[in-house]
């Protein structure tokens, strides 16, 4: 029975009318439940219900605490309330509602929160989760006896679709509820999910979607994403709930000196600790896992009152994370140091203060994180921003202004990735035979792939079948084949098995388990607990006996055993903090613009802490501050070197790319550049020759050096050898199913078992540079690690607006980036230099000529 036909109801702007309609829209038990609770349904909840009952897909944009989850499930629950009971002996019904969230934890959390109203209302509704942690017997049972509501993740949906009974499993599906849609759609997981939805629509054409999202810059993009793009441009209905009470955000005006550079914010520890003491529960957000470890360590050092303070980040062992989450829900903690793993709308405990350590890097991210405090819409959230250095003071100020203005800087949606499409095509084939024409139509219904060309689609099919190589050597090994009936089928059951093991778009860096053993046992120690995972490349730089910070403990590195990093209790000075590859967000374009504006306008410095305003005044006196839209480039000598510092404010990634390209160009101009270093705000290049003199002699001029044409050949040439491209290729190759994911326990088991992605990359690049996977890799790298598009926009923006200032000495604005020199490695080509140093050390110690046959019996 469809309620829609009976209670067709026009959405009006008048809230009062909506309330009156509650009784009409909501079944009787729901009305009673709301009344018993002393609540009334919120307007947007009813509005959403009405649109859904009218057969529409809907996007609900609302701040945290607005009752989004209940709103999302109301259409399902009201419909299920009316569904007649299954009679004994009658066939089991398929899934009614599918809920998809980006986090496993979120699915678990929803099960808990949704279960309560369902019980209290007395609905005959079964709710179950299905994640990577669900035991196989439960999965099998779910296939036979599906729950009414299944809570799951994009990867699990892909797996369900690839099974041969998918059509039957989903034939009764009515709704798909997509939580935290804004965060899902910007990644490759979003692409996979969009393709999955397109497949579900093939099974059930009248399927409705309900998207739940935080505020975004372009709601129309999400509205299109939610419905089939056949016909193109179709959009889901939109309901927007205005923000609740304005958050109460302040920037810490520290009594201490704010450092020039660095990210630790160690200077503010006493003040942070005071704030924790003054509040019930404080949530401390940092941008990276290393910062989380450091902050946690420092807080415990200051923790004279032994307050329960916990640590939560993505590298920690799952059990450990669950314990922290549980303690948080029970309000047993006073403070939690967390990274983005806690970013999303998980509702735990009574947080009454959010402390953000380090600049938030994006205004939307700030709003999201602050939403954690006081999880009720009508009370103001309280937050304190702790800038870790002076530039971050400017950034925090800009973010704060932006939040009050309600500015949004969510990243734009990108075109659907081809590696993800390859994975999906294979998944479809695993689910049953497909017709290429029909699948092409279906795929174009998914918003990210709406503009996909047929030729590209056919190349993807060819790739899935035989690898898509120009050298047609693998026809006999095809994974999928087109039969006489024109349908594509999997050629061997093994293909489906391989697909299931490799599904998903999250490709981790190779990691090692951190295994704790008792001190003094060294590598012989066994059987201790696993503390979490650490990236392999970091573990490789450690020497036995080194102390490093992990899981809030000082650990002593004992050695690497198979896929484990063996550690014991550590202590002492010289503690190393692991740096992690992921988790560093670059400064958002919007915020960068704000920071530039603030620099240019001395009237706005009044709101800055005095020491920071003073810093800017001295800069103005000794050098100059760039006008909004200008690019300032300073040159000055220091020691026996010449420095060039540029201030584009475009984020670390774009600056790194720019640094690489500038160094190449300066090398060609014989300026003998030695290296560069990039921060979110500026970059410094240093050379043996006087770059200012070169610019003056126009060899090259500064505008020529910064010309956009560097994004042509120079970029291409550098890219091909860049480790970043290799890393991106590995990800694409795993997602596309060319190489298999690495699983713990199988790594390094043999020299011939796998072929490394780097080797494949080298061979493919030199023999078929236009291969579809290399195309996908370049697209990804330009958008992601290199931020090429942003660099391009910047270069074009500053054309004719580059301001060169030659100085006798370093300027105040240059100090932060100059302090970074030596902390970061400079360039990838230097590896041979390191080998040479090592070889020379040997020669120095042993004397020259020592290598040539000193071990031989004959003299030469």
């Amino acid at each position: 029975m469809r309620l829609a036909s009976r209670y067709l109801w026009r959405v009006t702007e008048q809230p009062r009318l909506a309330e009156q309609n509650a009784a009409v829209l909501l079944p009787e038990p729901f009305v009673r439940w709301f009344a018993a609770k002393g609540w009334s349904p919120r307007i947007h909840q009813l509005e959403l219900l009405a649109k859904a009952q009218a057969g529409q897909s809907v996007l609900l944009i609302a701040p945290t605490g607005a009752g989004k989850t209940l709103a999302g499930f109301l259409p399902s629950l009201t419909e299920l309330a009316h569904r007649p009971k299954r009679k004994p002996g009658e066939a089991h019904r398929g899934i009614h509602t599918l809920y998809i969230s980006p986090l496993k934890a979120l699915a678990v959390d929803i099960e808990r929160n949704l279960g309560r109203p369902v019980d209290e209302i007395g609905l005959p509704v079964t709710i179950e989760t299905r994640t990577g942690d669900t035991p196989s017997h439960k999965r099998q049972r779910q296939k036979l006896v599906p729950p009414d509501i299944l809570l799951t993740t994009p990867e699990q949906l892909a797996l369900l679709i690839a099974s041969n009974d998918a059509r039957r499993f989903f034939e009764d599906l009515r709704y798909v509820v997509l939580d935290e849609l804004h965060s899902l759609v910007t990644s490759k997981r979003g692409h996979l999910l969009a393709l999955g939805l397109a497949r579900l629509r093939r099974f059930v054409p009248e399927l409705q979607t309900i998207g739940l999202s935080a505020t975004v810059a372009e709601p129309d993009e999400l509205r299109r994403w939610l419905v089939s793009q056949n016909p193109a441009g179709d959009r889901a209905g939109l309901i927007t709930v205005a923000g609740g009470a304005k958050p109460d955000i302040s920037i810490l005006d520290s009594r201490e000196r704010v450092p020039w550079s660095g990210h630790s914010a160690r200077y503010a520890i006493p003040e942070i600790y005071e704030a924790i003491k003054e509040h019930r529960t404080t949530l401390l957000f940092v941008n990276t896992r290393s910062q989380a470890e450091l902050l946690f360590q420092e807080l415990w050092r200051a923790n004279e009152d032994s307050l329960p303070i916990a640590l939560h980040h993505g590298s920690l062992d799952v059990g450990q994370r669950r314990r922290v989450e549980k303690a948080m829900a029970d309000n047993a903690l006073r403070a939690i140091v967390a990274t983005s793993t806690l970013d999303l709308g998980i509702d735990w405990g009574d947080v009454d203060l959010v402390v953000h350590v380090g600049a938030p890097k994006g205004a939307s991210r700030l709003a999201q994180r602050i939403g954690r405090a006081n999880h009720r819409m009508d009370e103001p959230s309280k937050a304190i921003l702790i800038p870790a250095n002076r530039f971050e003071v400017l950034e925090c100020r800009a973010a704060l202004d932006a939040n009050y203005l309600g500015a949004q800087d969510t990243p734009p949606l990108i075109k659907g990735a081809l590696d993800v499409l390859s994975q999906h095509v294979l998944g479809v084939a695993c689910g049953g035979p497909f017709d290429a024409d029909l699948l092409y139509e279906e795929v174009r219904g998914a918003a990210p792939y709406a503009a996909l060309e047929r030729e590209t689609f056919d190349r993807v099919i060819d790739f899935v079948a035989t690898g898509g190589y120009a050298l047609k050597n693998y026809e006999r090994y095809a994974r999928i084949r087109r039969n006489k009936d024109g349908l594509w089928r999997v050629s061997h059951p093994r293909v489906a098995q391989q697909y299931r093991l490799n599904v998903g778009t999250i490709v981790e860096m190779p990691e090692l388990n951190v295994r704790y053993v008792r001190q003094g046992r060294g590598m012989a120690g066994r059987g201790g607990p696993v503390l979490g995972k650490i990236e392999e490349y970091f573990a490789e730089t450690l020497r036995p006996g080194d102390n490093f910070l992990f899981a809030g403990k000082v650990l002593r590195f004992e050695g690497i055993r198979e896929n484990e990093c063996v550690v014991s209790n550590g202590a002492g000075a010289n503690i190393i903090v692991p740096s992690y590859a992921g988790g560093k967000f670059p400064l958002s374009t919007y915020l960068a613009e704000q920071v530039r504006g603030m620099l240019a306008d001395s009237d706005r410095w009044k709101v800055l802490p005095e020491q920071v305003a003073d810093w800017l005044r001295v800069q103005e006196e000794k050098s100059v501050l760039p006008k909004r839209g200008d690019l300032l480039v300073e040159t000055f000598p220091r020691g026996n070197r010449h420095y060039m510092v540029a201030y584009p404010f475009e984020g670390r990634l774009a600056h790194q790319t720019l640094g690489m390209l500038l160094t190449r160009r300066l090398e060609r101009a014989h300026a003998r550049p030695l290296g560069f270093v990039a921060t979110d705000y500026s970059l410094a290049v240093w050379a043996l020759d006087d770059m200012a003199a070169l610019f003056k002699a126009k060899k090259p001029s500064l505008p020529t050096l910064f010309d956009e044409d560097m994004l042509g050949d120079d970029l291409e040439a550098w890219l091909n050898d860049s480790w970043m491209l290799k890393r991106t290729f590995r990800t694409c190759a795993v997602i596309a199913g060319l190489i298999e994911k690495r699983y713990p326990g199988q790594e390094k088991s043999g020299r011939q078992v796998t072929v490394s992605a780097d080797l494949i990359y080298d061979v493919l690049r030199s023999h078929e540079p236009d291969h579809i996977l290399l195309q996908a890799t370049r697209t990804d790298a330009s958008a992601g690690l290199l931020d090429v598009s942003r660099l391009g926009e910047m270069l074009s923006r500053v054309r004719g607006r580059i301001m060169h200032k030659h100085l006798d000495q370093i300027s105040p604005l240059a100090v932060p980036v100059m302090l970074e020199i030596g902390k970061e490695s400079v360039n990838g080509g230097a590896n041979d230099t390191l080998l040479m140093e090592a070889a020379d050390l040997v020669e120095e110690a042993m004397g020259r000529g020592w290598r040539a046959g000193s071990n031989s019996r004959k003299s030469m």
Partner: protein
Amino acid sequence: MNFSLSRATLIAEADLIGIAGERAVCDRRGILYFPDLRLLAVSDLHLEKGSSFARRGALIPPYDTGATLLRLQAVIADYQPRIVVSLGDSFHDGGGAERMHQSFRERLEAMMAGRDWFWVAGNHDPDAPADLPGETVRELAVGSLAFRHEPSRLRVEGEIAGHLHPCARIVQRGRSVRRRCFAGDGGRMIMPAFGAYTGSLNVLDRAYAGLFRLETLMAYMLGAERIFAISGSMLRPG
């Protein structure tokens, strides 16, 4: 002997090392050349590894054989050896030679023409490669040198082996550099794998236990322009 200019430059005194008293050039491209014997040794070509994977459903690019042969062609052109020893695992599996594309077969045969060519049997290719010239041997003795695929467990002076695909790792300035390498102690030498798709195993792995005198162990790591000789004490596992 008629040394070409390039060969004379290639065999500069500094690149020479001694193995059981025999002079050898450790070429940065991963081959050994014995000028006095005019013998070139190469190990673990693993030809047709790509198609071997493809048979099992991993459709990795089919260009590895071409890439490996191109590099082999280059070193053979440089040194113009009289004898070539391929130290085993020349093909990734027994059917490799048969699967090899005709154009690659022709390229290989052109390289073999006019010189003595030995296929040392490896664990991946214990039998003679199908329809290819050259002599298949279990092992080969030349002067004081003994060529075999797997290093013997007993100490043998002058043994040149492959099989283990050695690489070495150092950490310098907090950064880790890993490269394929020749591993030797002056008496025995284990060669790096030459094939385009061959992985590598750290010389400090237990698979090498007992093979070297640790005091004189050297890793000759392959650089972009030269070989870097690193003493065993500076190496890192993993």
